[in-house]
């Protein structure tokens, strides 16, 4: 059974037509999550108000269960790279990101979720860790977090931090959704980099990290992201069922705990 659907918001920035109709048809029977890849929340440019207005219109039509964006930037000086680029985790960036999250939430009249991205580059002179930055954004703006477990693992491997520290640094009660996916490894000039490609099954180490995350944050709606080299539906569903099995185990223990 598919419990809910998630789509990229930008693919429905249209005035009409078959794709929007299909989404609305799905919406009549299922909760829908709108997952944005283009808001460029961390850009030092102002937010693109046209983009924000289109998201607002879509949210009004779809009435989604959740609206999420990424903790990243994609544009500067009006030029877009249309990629999830890493921020430097400084006080300056924190102020910038919080202002933009608040602007989006004000426009949409609802809290959003912010997702951690995979990163392949680290900056110097930072004031805090990525997880501290995320926790601060949530605390200051009231947004929730979408924890991408694969992204935590990929960044931990690329930047040699302990993924468990990441989980421990995120307060309980603010994680509203999780993502899982498979990465690929590239060798560049003898440097080994994990790339978040959404093209593989979830790796065992990521399942282990997922289990730890569920133990800490409780049963949380989880999406398998697989949008390159997409397998047959059965294989994809088996991956989703596997996540559900982890979720079921946690739900049970959560009940026992509260009893």
């Amino acid at each position, binding site marked *: 059974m598919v419990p809910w659907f998630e789509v990229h918001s930008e693919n429905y*920035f249209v005035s*009409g037509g078959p794709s929007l109709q299909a989404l609305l048809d799905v919406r009549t029977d299922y909760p829908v999550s709108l997952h944005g890849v283009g808001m460029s929340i961390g850009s030092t440019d102002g937010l693109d108000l046209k983009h924000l207005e289109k998201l607002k219109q879509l949210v009004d039509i779809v009435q989604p269960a959740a609206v999420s964006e990424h903790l990243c930037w994609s544009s500067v000086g009006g030029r877009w790279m249309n990629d999830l*680029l890493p921020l430097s985790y400084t006080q*300056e960036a924190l102020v*910038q990101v919080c202002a933009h999250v608040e602007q989006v939430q004000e426009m949409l009249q609802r809290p959003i979720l912010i997702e951690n991205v995979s990163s392949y580059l680290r*900056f110097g002179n930072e004031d805090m860790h990525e997880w501290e930055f995320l926790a601060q954004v949530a605390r200051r703006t009231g947004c929730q977090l979408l924890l991408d477990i694969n992204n935590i693992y990929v960044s931990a491997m690329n930047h040699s931090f302990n993924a468990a520290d990441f989980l421990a640094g995120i307060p309980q009660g603010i994680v509203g959704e999780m993502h899982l996916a498979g990465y690929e490894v590239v060798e560049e000039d003898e*440097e080994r980099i994990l790339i978040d490609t959404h093209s593989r099954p979830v790796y065992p180490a990521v399942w282990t990290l997922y289990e730890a995350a569920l133990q800490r944050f409780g049963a949380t709606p989880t999406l398998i992201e697989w949008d390159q080299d997409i397998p047959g539906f059965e294989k994809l569903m088996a991956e989703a069922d596997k996540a559900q099995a982890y979720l079921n185990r946690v739900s049970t223990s959560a009940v026992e705990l509260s009893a």
Partner: protein
Amino acid sequence: MSTLRTLQHDFCSAVFSSTEDDVLLARHCAGSTRRMRAGIAAYRRSVLANLASAVAGSYPLLQNIVGPDFINEAARRYAQLYPSLSGDLNLYGEHFGAFLAAYPPAADLPWLPAVAELEWEIQRIYGAPDAPAVDLAALQTTPPEQWEQLIFDLDPGHALIKSNWPLARIWEVNQTGHEGDMRVDFDMAQCVLVHRRGYDTHVELVAPGQFAFLNRLSQGVSLGPAVAAAMEVDEQFDFGVALQRFIASSLIRRAFLSEQS
């Protein structure tokens, strides 16, 4: 300029640098130079791949005609030269036709830009507002002497393209399932109507007179001057035939008398 803003500008310059120059970005980075270089290279690849695949994905017919390798390479060149101006990747690639017109490997196929223009319109129409309900009661109630003042609303899901190339024919022979005569007379210019009906987008050949007629109607011009414009192009233009065709195809959605009448 703030530290973060400088970093972002330097990042952008490094990603699009034709010489892969990353000196300015390097001063913001942690870790070894080799590590930093590998990271920037990963972003350079992924940014260009995102942009290029968005472009290539908007032009499936071009891929059919000249093959995916040709289009992917052209899209990569396009991604280096044409900035993306929106966080919505679906809007990127609009100028691919203009790019192909000046792209040396496409010099032997001067009609490719016309196909690109057609495909961009097809994509645009796919997300156009849905057609309003049909209301043609005014055709029954308007006395003949006032017909000249009738205004017709067209389905917003349409585009009109006047091409120097046999665009409708190129479209036709490249459709999956097309059988029989594949010949295309490239000396022929064609006017094309693109119209989305429900889930399907249709590419239809229209005569120059009908094209001029529809063009005027789509601008909100009333029937009298629209017919006059069509007859300037084609003395034989028959507006009854044209109205019948485009009412039957649901392109004409609404008829009403202009305010001035």
